[in-house]
């Protein structure tokens, strides 16, 4: 049986039970998926078509593979750049999230750094994989919920509706999601949006087919784009139909803090906190905060990773993995 409805990312239950939002969200995602996209002709036998991309709410496929598409959250264009690029702390880290230079955090992981004024040391880093679409849609149906969540997540009860919807409709690039806080993605080139991710997956099966990955052209410098496109395309050329797994969304799969040390050189404790979803299972997550409890007597900026003091949020992002769930199956 086809999937009855697309659930919210992380099965979030932000809207009240029974709200029409859940059906509306599903309808929205259904549109992003669009109709099934037929596969490309087999390169060796063009009369035969390879597997395509399907919309799981309309098409029934016998799933044979759960494929986790996983990549590193730190921007690959910087990762493979020369070390001098790394040294330019400015490019590694846009802690102010002001509009304009939103082209760095391109791997569907965005973060915001909080520093303490007197010595500029990092005290907290918040990571998100939430999409602007989810928040815009939620705001359309439940502006009051969006306002409450902004206040809760940013710990600031003085945030007002006009701050986040100055013209009456939701503004993804409002100050509380850029200059003064972080709620969801803002990067625009290439865009970190759910639509873009689904589009990549949907488009992966089209175009020229390859026999193996050595035949694939270069292209995007990001980790995520080849990860989604080439992996799904490789499944499709095995005559499998591919799609993204419900609940469709981008997720923080996990982190690796091995070799992170306190000022006394002993291993750090677990300072990660999954904020969204608040319900179990916490992982994969949508919003994660890294902050040292006050009782420890030091801050994030006092921690070293492999002997190197944390100076940028990107040093943490290097050790975070991001996930989008893929599926593949056979179709009668």
């Amino acid at each position, binding site marked *: 049986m086809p999937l009855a409805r697309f659930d919210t990312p992380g099965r979030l239950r932000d809207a009240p039970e029974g709200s029409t939002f859940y059906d509306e969200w599903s309808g929205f995602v259904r549109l992003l998926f669009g109709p099934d996209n037929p596969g490309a002709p087999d390169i060796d036998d063009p009369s035969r078509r390879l597997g395509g991309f399907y919309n799981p709410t309309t098409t029934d496929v016998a799933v044979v593979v759960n494929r986790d598409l996983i*990549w590193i959250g730190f921007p690959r264009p910087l990762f493979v750049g020369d070390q001098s690029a790394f040294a330019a702390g400015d490019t590694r880290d846009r802690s102010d999230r002001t509009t304009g230079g939103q082209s760095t955090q391109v791997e569907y992981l965005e973060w915001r750094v909080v520093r303490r004024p007197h010595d500029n040391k990092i005290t907290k880093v918040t990571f998100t994989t939430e999409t602007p679409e989810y928040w815009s849609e939620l705001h359309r149906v439940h502006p009051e919920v969006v306002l409450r969540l902004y206040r809760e997540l940013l710990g600031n009860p003085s945030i007002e509706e006009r701050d986040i919807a100055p013209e009456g409709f939701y503004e993804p690039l409002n100050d509380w999601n850029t200059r003064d806080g972080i709620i969801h993605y803002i990067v625009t080139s290439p865009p970190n949006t759910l639509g873009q991710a689904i589009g990549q997956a949907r488009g992966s099966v089209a175009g020229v087919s390859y026999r*193996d990955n*050595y035949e694939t052209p270069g292209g*995007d*410098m990001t980790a995520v784009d080849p*990860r989604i496109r080439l*992996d799904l395309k490789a499944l499709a050329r095995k005559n499998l139909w591919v799609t993204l797994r419900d609940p469709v969304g981008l997720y923080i799969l996990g982190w690796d803090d*091995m*070799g992170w040390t306190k000022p006394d050189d002993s291993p750090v404790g677990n300072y990660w906190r999954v904020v969204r979803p608040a319900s179990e299972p916490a992982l994969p997550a949508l919003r994660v905060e890294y902050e040292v409890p006050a009782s420890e007597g030091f801050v994030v900026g006092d921690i070293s990773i492999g*002997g190197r003091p944390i100076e940028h949020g990107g040093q943490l992002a290097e050790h975070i993995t991001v996930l989008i769930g893929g599926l593949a199956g056979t179709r009668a």
Partner: protein
Amino acid sequence: MSEVAKAALETIDDHHAVLPKGIMLAGSGAHLRAKDTPKEPREYVFRLAARRRIQGNVIPGFNKDHQQFLFFRMGDVHRARRWLVAIRPSISSMEEVLTFVRAHRALRLSRGEAEPGLKATWVNIAFSSGAISALLGPEQSSVFGDQSFRQGLAARSTYLGDPTDKSHPGHRANWVVGSPGNEADILLIVAGDDAGDLEDMVSSLRADAVDHDLQLLFEQRGDTLPGGLRGHEHFGFKDGISQPGVRGKVSTEPGDFITPRYLVPRFPGDQMPHLFARPGQPLVWPGQFLLGEPRQDPESFLARRPPATDFPKWARLGSYVVCRRLRQDVPAFWKFCAEGAAAAGVPVVEFASRLVGRWPSGAPLMRASTADDPVLAGDPFAANHFLFDDRTRPSPLRPIPGYPGDTHPHANADMLGVVCPHFSHIRKMNPRDSVTDLGKPADTLLRVILRRGIPYGPPVAGVKNPSRKLINRERGLMFLCYGATIEDQFEFVTRRWANSSAQPNSGGHDPVIGQRDDGGVRSRWLDFPTGSGARRFDLLHEWVVPTGGGYFFAPPIDAIDGVLASA
């Protein structure tokens, strides 16, 4: 150890590759005259001056049966400098090793002997960041772009997943060399065909060093394992099969490549002969191993990117060295395999082979999915010829006298890691055509290393009824590798791939070298593929334990006296 494990271990030397008769395989560095390679890509030529500067263990590699690693601490810097001037003529260059390889091959061809008694003993040298500081001043060592090198192995140990608990034998404080405060300044690598010659060379080097106020902190002898286990590591598996092919030529003469090329195009415009030297051996620009050479373009299998510049000028053509002394607990490995095999319902050797990705003979699981195949293992054009994600297509080769062609069954697609699991050591270390956590497979060419390790300690694998005493003797791998970075190559594959259950592809930790330390808890896991889905195994014990080593830099030979000794 259980009877099953014991039996498997005792007979593991039956699994040795059957070498084909009558084909003359060119080793790395051999010159193949190639009238049949019509269009050659323009490639960088290592001129004589460069070949004399590059140390021979970097390219093409010593590859000797007996080696000794000497770890020194410098005393008086002036005397150390005099020692450097004195030792410089003993350092073997790429030119010297290439000449030997070619002479060896010529003798084999003319006399038709497999082992034409030609012998050599070679020496190479490498310096820690601290040593460069002491010799040239901290400004010089700070110019080295690789921050991990500047920090040293001990400082990076827990980042590599090594134990954080001081009471653990693998904790850096317990290392035989390279522990904080006991870090070597200089690593000498001595390698020889003849054990006696090696020992003579080592004693003279040792005496000379001590005369110059160098303190020998530690030394380790390594030897290839005897008999049927020649070329295998202590668990019993053939090692040293898969190495990247360094791009570049020895002269402008057609066919005179550092890494012999065998592929011919399958169709007009076929790129494969430009991507691979032998089937399964990818070509990599030399700047991935030698500072200041053209590097691999991060976005392409083929294209090059300009040389790096983040090093002192004199260091050009040098290479970073990682040395890790890895102790192997062979009974523990086989005990785990015996228990795992029973639980998974497969033979012990098969279970162990799925952890490695190859059978003990070296035959890859991708081409021998249900049983070892020593003939496949012995076929130098087939044993490394496989992809993971898609069916491997035959690679036509130029005519090779005596070689009938690759007649073994070709590898089928195994994108899901059912045959060669995602956690297996070779798939972790080299995901080949697979997409990874950094995206396109061309990125993987930025991660490859030149491995130059050798086992140490007496073997227990293949020994019938080993005594308790023998079992308890220490053994392991003197792991050594070269690269143009430490951070983006050795450390990358160690921390991000071996030590992760999800990278480069989901399925578990590398059960051979993976390390984890979560607040002292060191267990890892893997999802072992069985007929009825994956079965999770927790790896609670460790059979590869770091016991020493260091990060070093192998300078170009002329810099030893010309720069390091001359300040």
